[in-house]
């Protein structure tokens, strides 16, 4: 099973950044699956856990920078939930699985690619 990465991308920052990465012909791993959400604050713990249940190896939640969230507290909520998810995963020693949150602006495609590469590196390190 290839190491599938699910990325919940906020339509105000991460999704346009992903598009820009495409326009600039930057390279991303093919196993990346982007799911568009109106705000990182919409991503709930159950969505992340279900992604793992369906075979994802890593889940990325990508939202706006602090102080630039279109919905003021969306990115902070997402950060709290990702922290809670990491705790839930640690509880069941699912160290092979990773969930991480990164903040970026819509004009930062390189940051988007760096986030994907960072999570891929973590997967390799944990030998999945």
């Amino acid at each position: 099973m290839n190491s599938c990465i699910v990325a919940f991308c906020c339509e105000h920052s991460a999704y346009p950044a992903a598009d820009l990465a495409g326009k600039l012909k930057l390279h991303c791993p093919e196993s990346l699956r982007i799911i568009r959400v109106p705000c990182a604050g919409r991503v709930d713990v159950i969505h992340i856990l279900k992604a793992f249940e369906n075979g994802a190896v890593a889940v990325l939640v990508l939202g706006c920078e602090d102080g630039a969230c279109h919905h003021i507290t969306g990115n902070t909520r997402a950060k709290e939930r990702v922290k809670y998810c990491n705790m839930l995963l640690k509880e069941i020693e699912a160290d092979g699985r990773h969930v991480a949150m990164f903040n970026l602006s819509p004009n930062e495609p390189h940051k988007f690619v760096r986030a994907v590469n960072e999570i891929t590196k973590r997967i390799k390190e944990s030998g999945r």
Partner: protein
Amino acid sequence: MIIAERKPMEEIRQMIAPYKKLLLAGCATCVAVCWAGGEKEVGILASQLRLDQSKGRKKISVLEATVERQCEKEMVEELRDKVQEVDAVLSLACGSGVQTMAEMFEDKPVFPAVNTTFIGMPEREGLWVEMCGACGDCFLDRTGGICPIVRCAKGLLNGPCGGMRKGGKCEIDPEKDCAWVLIYRRLEKQGRLDLMREYYPPKNYRAVKRPGRIQAAKA
């Protein structure tokens, strides 16, 4: 409102270790409102258990169900056929819900997945604080509406104790306010400090003969 907190995964694992098929039963009232055992938490725990592949744990199948209130026999009855299908029930309701479930389905083991902690209120979303200890002999009229039985670490009727920290904080936790300082400030504001100056004799700790039983006069 009853406040509860989910048990650590380690405890839950030990309880359900011998069983292959489980029913996770949530309750949509108190434990849902305090984010401990509602339909959403049932989904999260079920997902966690399915993902729990560590150290060769055998795959378990998990059914999910949530009833309006698990402390009502008729509502728990709706789960009868699902309970027949499984080896054990993991209830995310408060203690009263778990025991109603255990009573209704005596042939199946029923386990608690949450710890029922106290009767309280949310200070802000995500933070709940204890307000009432259900002592059966309410004392709030004499303390300006602040209960020293549960909000004072020692439950004193003639507070505060000598260990009160600077700034009116509790002896055991510098973050918590000393209940008797709160009472003092409120009674002072209302000009009713005589209530605090009054001597209160030892409390009747048997006001509710445990386990409590209340027979409504009209039924």
